[in-house]
């Protein structure tokens, strides 16, 4: 039997390699979703990890850290917020449908 594929649609989900139940403390959205200002998850809406061990959406922590009131501190632990080199590996799972 010969099958001709005429078209297919691809579907992808995005997942960061961090614990399942983690939400960004600032927007309270799961890290696998975007920050409230973005539409698509992934490299355009990255996560930022502090050396203190706390993660945030990059856009969320940047909005906070540029405030005077932030005093350069992590919102979770109030240590000086310095970001670590990107430790998260992202994995993309792709499913194809016929």
């Amino acid at each position, binding site marked *: 039997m010969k099958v001709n594929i005429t078209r297919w649609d691809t579907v992808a989900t995005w997942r960061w390699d961090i614990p399942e139940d983690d939400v960004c*403390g*600032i*927007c*309270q*959205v799961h890290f696998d979703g975007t920050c*409230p*200002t973005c539409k698509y998850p992934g490299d355009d809406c990255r996560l930022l990890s502090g050396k203190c061990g706390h993660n945030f959406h990059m856009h*969320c922590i940047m*909005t*906070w850290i540029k*405030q*005077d*009131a932030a005093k350069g501190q992590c*919102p*979770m632990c*109030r240590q000086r917020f310095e970001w670590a080199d990107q430790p998260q590996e992202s994995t993309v799972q792709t499913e194809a449908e016929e």
Partner: protein
Amino acid sequence: MTSFASKRLAKELSKLKNGLPPGIDLISADNFEEWLMDIRVLDDNPIYRGEVYRLKFRFSPQYPIEPPEVTFIKQSDRPIPTHPHIYSNGIICLDLLGSQGWSPVQNVETVCMSLQSMLTGNSKNERPPGDEEFVRSNRKRPRDIDFYYDDNTV
């Protein structure tokens, strides 16, 4: 209102509707600008025993980057709690609610819990110094008042 504040508040609201810590109740949240909450203390502190207090939260479009404005409001069955950091018009002096002490990881629930423990831990049945004068003369909104957080004992 920016979508950031309303999305964050929508998240909080659905979490609040799934359950709240003891002594904290959601009274109304019809929009993303003003919510009403009730709190009561859980121990036998004689100053607050048997009373329920109503809190009004007002959110700016910059919430949670900016703190919410939180005050006690008076109704026939909802007095203003007596506390050295709570003025008789309901304005609260708490560093957590000022721009110097606020953190965007705080939320309505954690603010309610902080106020609950602020009452629970208090043993002074008194108003702040200068309460009458402050209540008579203050025309500022709480966020515009420069409080001095000089007393860490209560």
